[in-house]
């Protein structure tokens, strides 16, 4: 660019200085003192919520914990915890853990496969929203109606039982199957575990970048190699988190077991229920210890769950 007629060597620095002077911080730029934050009033607005949560959620839970450390007269004791190690109580915990772990695994695996099918499986779009809605409904279909449904299906004169006998000559009950047993209960629980898994794991699968698959293919990997080396490892934290959630879900379940087996199978929730209702084994202090044990299990579950969730979100953004 050629110089303008009135430009001289000193004009430019002068203009620069003038511009700098104009933009220098002045009195009006002085940082205004901020008014002190009105803390107390804002917190007041949360009182109703916290009051309610405290009164009807925290207090009851804490009272269970304190109750487990007390005897019938209210004195401090650890006797209830000793009772937890009675053979029958331990057996109860064991079977509850078995049911929870089994249904978490079954529900987790099948739920994952279904979730995979509706996300990456190449199915037409409407399928996904249908399965999501259905999963939402099915995961809520628990408790008494579910028990009835399975009785109608796999009970002694259930639909499938009869069908298998008349069409295929298979005698389920003769072969030792019983709906009101461990496997019957597990099968029933799995009915809501699968959709719960679908709902939980679908976002995680969505979060997997399709470019990972393409990059792996580009580098020579087959589909199996991709899943083994990249897909499953990346999903593992999310899968473990989901498994733990399913486990906790089954562990605390009362209604379905109650409606299906009526107390036949001594799950921990059933045992607790029996204490509350004052049945033969009525020993409410023991009930508190049982409940406390359950609270421990749930707390450990939720901690493990959050840890795995955090891990998962680091990779699958």
């Amino acid at each position, binding site marked *: *660019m050629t110089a303008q007629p009135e430009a001289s060597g000193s004009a430019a620095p002068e*203009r620069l200085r003038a511009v700098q002077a104009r933009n220098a911080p002045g009195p009006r730029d002085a940082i205004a003192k901020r008014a002190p934050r009105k803390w107390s009033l804002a917190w007041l607005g949360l009182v109703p919520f916290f009051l309610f949560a405290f009164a009807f959620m925290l207090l009851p839970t804490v009272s269970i914990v304190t109750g487990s450390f007390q005897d019938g007269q209210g004195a401090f004791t650890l006797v209830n915890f000793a009772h937890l190690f009675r053979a029958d109580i331990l057996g109860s915990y064991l079977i509850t853990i078995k049911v929870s772990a089994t249904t978490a695994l079954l529900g987790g695996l099948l739920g994952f496969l279904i979730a995979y099918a509706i996300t990456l499986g190449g199915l037409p779009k409407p399928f996904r929203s249908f399965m999501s809605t259905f999963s939402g409904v099915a995961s809520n279909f628990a408790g008494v109606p579910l028990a009835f449904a399975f009785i109608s299906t796999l009970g002694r004169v259930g639909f499938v039982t009869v069908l298998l006998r008349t069409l295929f000559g298979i005698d389920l009950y003769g072969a030792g199957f019983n709906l009101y047993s461990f496997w019957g209960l597990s099968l029933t629980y799995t009915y809501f575990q699968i959709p719960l898994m679908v709902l939980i794991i679908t976002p995680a699968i969505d979060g997997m970048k399709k470019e990972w698959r393409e990059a*792996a*293919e580009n580098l*020579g990997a087959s589909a199996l190699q991709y899943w083994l080396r990249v897909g499953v490892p990346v999903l593992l934290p999310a899968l473990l988190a989901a498994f733990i959630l399913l486990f906790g879900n089954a562990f605390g379940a009362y209604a379905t077991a109650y409606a299906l087996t009526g107390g036949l199978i001594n799950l921990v929730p059933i045992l607790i229920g029996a204490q509350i209702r004052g049945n033969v084994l009525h020993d409410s202090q023991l009930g508190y210890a049982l409940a406390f044990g359950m609270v421990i299990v749930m707390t450990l579950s939720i901690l493990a769950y959050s840890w795995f969730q955090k891990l998962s979100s*680091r990779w699958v953004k």
Partner: protein
Amino acid sequence: MAFLELHEVVKSFGRNTVVRGLSLSVEKGEFLSFLGGSGCGKTTTLRMIAGFETVTAGAILLDGSDLSRVPPNKRNLGMVFQNYALFPNMTVARNIAFGLKIAGKKGGEVAKRVEEMLELIHMGDFAERYPHQLSGGQQQRVALARALARRPSALLLDEPLSALDAKIRLRLRDDIRAIQRALGITTIYVTHDQEEALSISDRVAVMREGRIEQIGAPFEIYNAPGTPYVATFIGTLNVLAATVKDPSKGEVVVEGQTFGTGKPIGDNAGGDIRVSIRPEALTAGDAGPNRLKGTVQNVKFLGSIVRVVIRVGSQFVSMDGFNDPSLVPPRIGEELSMSFAPQACMVTKPEAAPLPIAAVDEEETAEA
């Protein structure tokens, strides 16, 4: 025969045709860029070469053999994605080693190659880091190393720098070019950034609506654009409405001011035309041979370039010059004269009609 050839490649998604009969020859060791706006088909074409999209019609040949039968994991082409796509569960070293492990290479050989690659991208200390611990630029470099580790026959890059900050982008693109030169690997690079394409490519293919508008060296594309689309897409361009004054002498009138364009115009006197001039072809002053007078509307500092926007009648002309701190920029409202050479003018019909006679040196225009 060229190393990579595309013959009349067509790609349709249902009734939507995204790539329309594209033909192309890429030489071994060449760095070719696909340049265009979104939807022009550049990424789709790249993905067809990589094998992630099927070819609706036409053929893709690599070193003479047809690629359409070959699944993507057997094509031995290295691909770099826009969002890096590093495997989050693996360290940098294991990411780079991935392709080698799949190919069944032994541990010692793999380790040696990984080290070579880390040296190439200057990230020797990062071997045990995980992708989420790296910046965007670092991740992309690892992605590049990962793609090159297997010594692929060609390198495909899909807008690799779009997700990065401007400064990193500049540095990384030079690195990519340097590595490509050092390895002599045939490279196809997709981008929407024309400055990027021009600065690192051997040839640039400007794409539009599924076709190649023009393909050529950056110098040609910029200085001798084959179509008005290419002219306006590449760099900045002043496009002025003008009327023909004397067709045989190539004289035109812009806002009442007359000048010559150096070559005859295939139109009648009084005809409506467009005259295009690059901003850097204009200089301030009366020197001529062509002159345009106007009023300074705006002065923009673009870093090393100072762009003066001058109002000529009802139109605006941008004039670029190098920044010089000792010079005073023109004031807004000042009267200013611009000078330029007749050869700097490109004359076209309005609405992107084909160029008139003898306008441009013979260059490949849109590939059929």
